[in-house]
């Protein structure tokens, strides 16, 4: 059990930890950019003197910072291997894809958590806001449950660099961009063109945001609320429908992602696409 599952799984966490350590300047730059980007978005709320808008923007940047980092790390893991030239060695190791991708996902979640903590600290330094009365514990629970669904989406997107050495990596960014567009991260979904709105139903971020807005108490605030307004966050019971949908999405997307990945791997071995490029 240890030799077949846990040690190989740990190998991916070990590798990613040391890669992040060796590429620390990149990590620092990306994190700095995430903090500054989040603050500039949130400061729009400060400029309009609207506490409700400010909290909506802060929630959007924090949640997206976390989910996008996790999704991106998983989806790009194959691109990194192509870039380094190690993909064939990873794929010929006696490791099941479930163990491989679980290891990658754990590592990605840890990296995303580290980054979101720094983003929150950055926001606290640069943006005047309070969260008194918000159900922060509930928000944590929603983020954890949403992570499962996002791991599934990440696995599906990771297929793209397996199938196309040249275009797969950039295609994962398009996938991520579409989720950002339809999920209503910074705006209500109803402002999207009518034909685009139904797509929001398929993004886990839509439900995660909806639940977090209730737990934060932002939905109960009037438009143009003052910065001293007291928040009244909902309880977890009030967001059970959203949590249920996120759980179902996770239960469907992870096996589906693994299935698609295995099919793509088979296709790549049939067509010779695993060969090193770059």
């Amino acid at each position, binding site marked *: 059990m*240890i*030799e*077949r599952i846990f*040690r*190989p799984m*740990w*190998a991916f966490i*070990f*590798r990613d930890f*040391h*890669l992040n350590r*060796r*590429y620390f300047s990149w990590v620092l730059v990306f994190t700095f950019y995430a903090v500054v980007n989040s603050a500039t978005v949130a400061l729009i709320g400060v400029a309009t003197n609207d506490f409700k808008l400010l909290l909506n923007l802060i929630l959007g940047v924090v949640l997206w910072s976390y989910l996008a980092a996790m999704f991106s790390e998983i989806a790009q893991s194959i691109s990194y291997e192509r870039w*380094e*030239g*190690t993909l*064939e*060695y*990873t*794929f*010929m*190791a*006696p*490791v*099941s894809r479930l163990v491989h991708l679980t290891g990658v996902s754990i590592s990605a979640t840890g990296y995303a958590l580290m980054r979101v903590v720094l983003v929150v600290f950055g926001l606290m330094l640069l943006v005047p806001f309070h969260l008194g009365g918000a159900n922060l514990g509930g928000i944590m629970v929603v983020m954890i449950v949403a992570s499962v669904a996002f791991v599934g989406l990440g696995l599906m997107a990771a297929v793209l660099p397996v199938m196309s050495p040249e275009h797969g990596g950039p295609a994962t960014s398009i996938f991520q961009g579409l989720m950002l567009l339809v999920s209503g991260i910074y705006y209500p979904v109803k402002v999207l063109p009518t034909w685009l709105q139904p797509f929001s139903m398929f993004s886990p971020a839509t439900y995660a945001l909806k639940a977090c807005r209730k737990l934060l108490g932002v939905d109960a605030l009037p438009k143009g609320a003052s910065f001293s307004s007291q928040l009244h966050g909902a309880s977890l019971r009030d967001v059970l429908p959203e949590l249920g949908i996120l759980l179902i999405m996770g239960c469907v997307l992870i096996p589906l992602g693994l299935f698609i990945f295995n099919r793509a791997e*088979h296709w790549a*071995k*049939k*067509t*010779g696409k*695993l*060969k*090193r*490029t770059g």
Partner: protein
Amino acid sequence: MTFSNTNSPAIIVEDLKKVFRKRSGFMKSKVTEQWALKGISFTVKDRETYGVLGPNGSGKSTLIRVLSTLLIPDGGSVEILGHTLPKDERWIRQNIGRVSVDAAFYKKLSARENLLYAAQLYGIKPGVAQKRALEILGRLGLKLKRFNDPLEEMSRGMQQKISVARALLINPPLLLLDEPTTGLDPKSRRDVQTYLEEIRKEEGTTIVLTTHDMAEAERLCDRIAFIAHGRIVAEGTADELKLKADTENLEDAFIKITGEKFNDEKEEGEEE
């Protein structure tokens, strides 16, 4: 890890075929087929070093990739250490080591980090792996103070020695070597060749070696197959091949038998 059934061949390949299809033209509607392997059959005995000689584009790397479970063939059968592909893919992966012509590593990571990562994929404890890695690298002539240096700071020869160490960390009964000494300086080449002879003697490792280097093939291989255009055109000991071609050296024998020269064409059928 050793392969216990010494009476059985280590590898049986029968009528192995691999074709690559390339799409081109308007809407990629035109499909051209390039046969990399056109029905190859051979047997490698247990504890034997079997050489595959051929120019670039002859199908050597495709053959190694099929044996490494990285390519699914389009025909024929492969049996490795008594197990068949693709049915026993996982077992086979656990029991083969591979060294490719390009030392594929995480270049920012140190030799230690790269090797411990690889060893843990095979379920080996880091402590055990580190001890074995140092022993192998010491025997390959690598200065051990370089163990913690990033790969990007090492020469190609050093990187290739670490690649050999990675393949041998699991002490595999079967080693697949795809031009392991190409581009190495004479000292590094000799270090690697000497070590391969030693492990074969000590561990009884079966080796499949593809190479351009005739002297290397003569030194290391019990038997040699000449491969050209995806077919094995001759097989035997170096002396048998020279006798068959009535030539003084192996390179002349290759040219005479295959009508080919060692050139720099890219691997047939595989996209760059």
